[in-house]
């Protein structure tokens, strides 16, 4: 029996490896995904174009302009007339325009309140919010410095900020470790979900069924290759994360692999479900999407789960990716204590056992 399973596994791996296109598909897309996600998935705003309408021409507005220019949020600055603002924002030439009224500097110099208008493009709600925050912070800070300098008050150094685990708030440190989980999940689902469907479409699955191989053996023969591919994929991405992106891994490698295997079991469970239901590869792709979209969107990958509406948050409790991603990020940057790992591993173990045994029973029933 072991021999038969072995043969099946080798056959399955060979089927993936022999076809040049399939082989490429297992290697190239993960790299592209990793790179695009790592560099594109940033909620920071930098390098944008700023429009300035300055009716003031005084010293204070000039200083504020200088301050804004010195940040890397803005790379280009255009001076505009009032009539050009519409076109500037409408045609998306820039995200934001700041406007100084006449006599702005004069007011501030005379210790009266001066107002700066900040016009932002609300079509991009997130970037607008962030840019508006940046500008407000720079202007507030300048205002306090000015007051300190002129002995009006001394509060410019009231606060000091320390960012733990990631002092420079590098976005990649947040995104890339999570990608190890997401990309191995995607590849694992596509491989296990589609392999049976493809055999059904080509008719080779029936040949398998009439052979002396038992359903359980087919099941194992289809699961183990998925596990091997998932492990290989994750290891490959793990190495890129550490060696190319140079993101610190502060936790234990042993814990990483232990959690990874448990996580992959739950993914394989889903893959088997899809396999047993789908008659065609198109159906399998549909199944994969129906699982992957919620799994990724509700994992806390891009936006924190705490931001989601109250009715949606409990649903994330069933999402294996959520737990694994938390553990992964924790192991990378925080070296989270084993008790915290365990608290997140426990639900993951439960989900994996339920999914894998459930899918296995279902798969065997469908075969009979």
């Amino acid at each position, binding site marked *: 029996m072991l021999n038969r399973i072995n043969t099946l596994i080798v056959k399955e791996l060979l089927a993936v490896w022999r076809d040049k296109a399939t082989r490429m598909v297992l290697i190239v897309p993960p790299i592209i995904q990793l790179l*695009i996600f790592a560099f594109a998935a940033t909620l920071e705003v930098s390098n944008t174009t700023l429009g300035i309408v300055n009716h003031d021409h005084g010293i204070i507005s000039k200083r504020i302009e200088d301050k804004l220019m010195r940040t890397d949020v803005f790379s280009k600055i255009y001076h505009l007339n009032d009539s050009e603002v519409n076109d500037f924002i409408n045609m998306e030439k820039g995200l934001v325009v700041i406007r100084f009224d006449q006599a702005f500097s004069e007011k501030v110099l005379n210790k009266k*309140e001066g107002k700066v208008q900040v016009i932002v493009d609300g079509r991009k709600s*997130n970037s607008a919010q962030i840019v508006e925050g940046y500008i407000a912070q720079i202007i507030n800070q300048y205002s306090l410095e000015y*007051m300190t300098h002129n002995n009006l008050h001394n509060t410019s150094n009231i*606060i000091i900020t320390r960012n733990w685990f*990631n002092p420079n708030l590098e976005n990649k440190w947040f995104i890339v470790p999570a990608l190890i989980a997401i990309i191995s999940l995607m590849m694992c689902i596509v491989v296990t979900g589609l392999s049976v469907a493809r055999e059904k479409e080509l008719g080779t699955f029936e040949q398998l069924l009439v052979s002396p191989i038992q359903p359980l053996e087919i099941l194992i023969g289809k699961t183990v290759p998925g596990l091997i591919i998932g492990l290989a994929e994750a290891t490959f991405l793990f190495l890129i994360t550490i060696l190319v992106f140079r993101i610190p891994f502060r936790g234990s490698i042993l814990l990483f692999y232990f959690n990874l295997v448990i996580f992959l079991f739950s993914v394989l469970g889903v893959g088997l479900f899809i396999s047993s239901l789908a008659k065609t590869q198109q159906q399998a792709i549909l199944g994969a999407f129906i699982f992957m979209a919620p799994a990724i969107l509700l994992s806390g990958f891009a936006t924190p789960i705490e931001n989601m509406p109250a009715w949606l948050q409990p649903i994330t409790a069933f999402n294996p990716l959520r737990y694994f991603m938390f553990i992964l990020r924790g192991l990378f940057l925080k070296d989270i204590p084993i008790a915290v790992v365990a608290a997140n591993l426990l639900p993951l173990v439960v989900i994996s056992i339920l999914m894998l045994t459930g899918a296995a029973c279902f798969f065997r029933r469908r075969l009979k």
Partner: protein
Amino acid sequence: MEKNIILQRLKGLVYKEILQIFRDPSSLLIAFVLPAIFLVLCGYGLSLDIKDIKFGIVTENTTPTTQSLVRSFINSKYYDVSVGYDRHTFEKELIAGKIKGFLVISQDFSQKIKNKNNFTPIQLITDGSDSNTAILVQNYTQGLLYNWLGQNYAAKLISVEPRIWFNSELKSSNSIIPGIIAIAMTLVGTLLTSLVVAREWERGTMESLMATPVSIVEIILGKIIPYFILGMISAILVVVASILMFDLPFRGSFVWLLILSAAFMLVSLFLGLLISTLSKNQFVASVVSLVIAFLPTVMLSGFMFEISSMPLVIRLISYVIPAQYFVSGVRSLFLAGDIPELFILDTVKMLLFGLAVFFIIAKKTVKRLD
């Protein structure tokens, strides 16, 4: 007579395709149910409207000044504040990911602030491992602090008056939904189409088709027409659902919506055809559509992540992502109304891209059986 035969053949091909769509329910599910799932998940789940961030404040004494500052944080809608006296408990919670940051207000805070002493009596610790939230926590904390200072100690000399155009409440669903329409159309146009055509290659039915007197153009048209209609219906349903479910404003005209959508649909279809023509295998076609069409639509179309913030190479790639132009146009159409100059530019860019893809397909799909 020639014309009649061609039309009839085309009708036959389209009819066959429509039958196939209805026979395998997964086509309709991909066209209608998947977009609905994306709409609900992204519309509700991808919210960047931060509120009630778990946040701690450590106070070493309870003078009225300290209390007044703490109250201003408690009253803020951004934070869900817990107050304590021991920073070690908060440090542990930060490591366990239970809070996103905490503030330490030193014992001599009230004194220092009265004496105008230039010393830092407040410390903010954030969880840098979630860098996005950490940036927001920094911004909000400083904003709250400056406001509190302005109200109590040093009336602000310079104030910032934000004017938000087109989306005054900065609702993130308003920005995200145009991206979901693009996702729906990519699913039908590129993913589904590439699967359908790759299946014909895989099963050998494409060869049978080629053995008939039908020309390549007819085969391509026979595939494009039904999926074009399917994709447009799917897009319109998403638009209607988002207006009903998310109160998405619709300030532009329907005609421009149709023009922009039709251009994007066409490009997506061509891309799907190209992928299947090159891969001729459903597994490869599905992964390739995922990587070169679906993923860029999500990541590089600018509905979530600001394109200008990305490194140069990625920005260059984003220029050839048609979804970017579609999202830019449709987003403006919904939120700002008709801006014909922008829409024409977006449409032309999409069509140019479509034309380029079409030429590659035409070159690759010579009647050849290899």
